[in-house]
């Protein structure tokens, strides 16, 4: 991966309905750099501003404040048809009065390429998305998955500097979606084009991306590789939005450069590696992933005590819910190795053991 920047947003804000009483701040001083040839995902719940950011890069909207840069050049004022950036739309937006081949060739034709050039590129794109034998079909004569491929081919054909994908898989059923996830990764690898992918599906984001930006309420909360986002969320929203997480209030009692001593609500004190910049004596929230905790039946020195309320079998895993005297139960997920699992009677006292290194400290 090259370190050159493909797209950069610099302090971008977008306010809809400015100077009316229904002012909506869709983006709030967002700055982010996306590298060349990167599979970059904007992840967040609906209304978080991810699609607005994508539309600003495409040129369908213009920023209220800040600038969008493409390979270092400010493109904020350019209309969409002058930006070497293409979009795969959520519902594909294929032209219903054209054939598959005509759809794919549209961008090339608008760029003023000759008939032969257009035909050659369209042919290559049809091979790339495995649609050669359907090139003369009308759009309403092909399936949703095939339409998805045509939309991809149409957007990739003009060889854009950046491909924008606006929740393109959300209309597909689960099986097709998994296939297309693999397909998208392959296409990105084969074309070497920077992909900016918008989704609200955290699993999709984690499996496909080189880097993920988690967004909420018009801001980017954290940018990082999937494992960083998952294992080291720096914000309660990020920890909650990505995967399942147990939250637990705690108090910092002792603190040095490498370690921090923390008191849990039950009075138990534990020592865990210190994250940078933690204020002394403060109230914090601990985030613990369900699969990073274990159920122990014998008394353990650093365990949290509670009574088992539920045991849920979910195929590969078994989920245990333990009442530890807080509003929500503590969830522990254990893999069902060898198809066997330990039977623990409901209501019995159990301990939850956690490796201190996997505990994440979030500042409130």
């Amino acid at each position, binding site marked *: 991966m090259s370190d050159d920047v493909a797209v950069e947003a610099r302090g971008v804000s977008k306010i809809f309905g400015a100077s009316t009483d229904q002012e909506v701040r869709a983006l709030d001083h967002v700055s982010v750099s996306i590298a060349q040839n990167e599979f970059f995902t904007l992840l967040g719940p609906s209304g978080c501003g991810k699609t607005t950011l994508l539309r600003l890069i495409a040129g*369908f909207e213009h920023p209220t404040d800040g600038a969008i840069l493409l390979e270092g050049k400010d493109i904020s004022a350019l209309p969409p*048809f002058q930006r070497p950036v293409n979009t795969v*739309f959520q519902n594909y*937006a*294929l032209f219903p*009065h054209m054939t598959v081949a005509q759809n794919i060739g549209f*961008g090339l034709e*608008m760029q003023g390429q000759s008939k032969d050039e257009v035909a050659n590129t369209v042919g290559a794109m049809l091979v790339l998305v495995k649609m050669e034998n359907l090139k003369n079909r009308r759009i309403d004569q092909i399936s949703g998955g095939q339409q998805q491929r045509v939309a991809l081919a149409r*957007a990739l054909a003009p060889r854009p500097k950046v491909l924008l994908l606006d929740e393109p898989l959300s209309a597909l059923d689960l099986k097709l979606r998994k296939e297309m996830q693999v397909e998208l990764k392959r296409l990105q690898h084969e074309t070497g084009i920077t992909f900016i992918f918008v989704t609200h599906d955290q699993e999709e984001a984690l499996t496909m991306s080189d880097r993920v930006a988690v967004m909420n309420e018009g801001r980017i909360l954290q940018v990082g590789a999937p494992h960083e986002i998952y294992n080291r969320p720096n914000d309660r929203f990020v920890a909650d939005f990505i995967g399942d997480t147990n939250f637990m209030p705690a108090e910092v009692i002792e603190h040095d450069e490498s370690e921090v001593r923390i008191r849990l609500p039950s009075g138990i004190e534990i020592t865990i590696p210190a994250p940078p910049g933690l204020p002394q004596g403060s109230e914090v929230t601990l985030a613990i992933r369900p699969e990073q905790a274990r159920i122990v039946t014998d008394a353990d020195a650093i365990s949290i005590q509670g009574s088992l309320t539920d045991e849920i079998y979910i195929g590969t895993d078994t989920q245990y819910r333990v009442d530890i005297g807080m509003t929500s139960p503590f969830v522990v997920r254990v893999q069902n190795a060898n198809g066997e699992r330990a039977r623990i009677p409901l209501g019995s006292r159990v301990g939850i053991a956690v490796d201190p290194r996997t505990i994440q400290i979030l500042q409130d």
Partner: protein
Amino acid sequence: MATSSRPFSIERMPGFSLLALTCFFALYMPLAPLVVYSFNAGDNIALWEGLSLRWYVAAWENDLVQSAAIRSVVVAVIASVVATSLATMVALGTTRTRPYRGQTSIYAMVNQPLMVPEIVTAVALLIFFALIKESTGYHGYAYLISAHTAFCIPFAYLPIRARLEGMDRVLETAAADLYATPWRSFTRVTLPLLLPGILAGAMLAFVISLDDVVITEFVKSAGQDTLPTYMLGQLRRTITPEINAISTVLLGVSVVMVTIIFFLSRKKA
């Protein structure tokens, strides 16, 4: 209960089919004698004397009918083409722009011919055109054509607007994303998808212009009879089945046009 599990359907309401049949009967029954007697061999429009096409031949050979028919078609073609072009522009201006002040009043103004009683428009045009005729001395077809154009606009506008509103605007966004300038996006994406609506609007305008009586009767100068005003004139004298024959042909034209409009409007966007 067995019936309550089925979804509500008006077809199972008591008397529904009877009511429907009555409506169809009331709408189409009066047309039957008109069509039947157009094929009458005799001179009387109410006394059957055998099957014949003689009144069709008579109408065809009647110079007055011929010239009125040609006049009707020419006026209807020009009026519907001009009205449809204007209506297309208005429809684009009221759907493909950012919302602006006065958008609703434009909508109301364009549809004004549908609300204002035709006779009022006719009298107003008569007075207005009389003033122009007096000052310019021009007595040609421009009056008739512009009057027809004006009242055809809303009929052309409605199907075009409906089509535009049903069209996904993301298609135009996609065209812009694929390097199409606004003009090429219009000619390559918007216009082809709008075409069925434009054709439907034009045909509706044509039919409306073709059978207009009231405004034409008030606006036409001497010797400018269209087919409907010619027929109206004939009714004041002796009525022969020739009128039936002409009416039947007009009816046929309308039915064909409306059928085409129906299929055009049903075409998927």
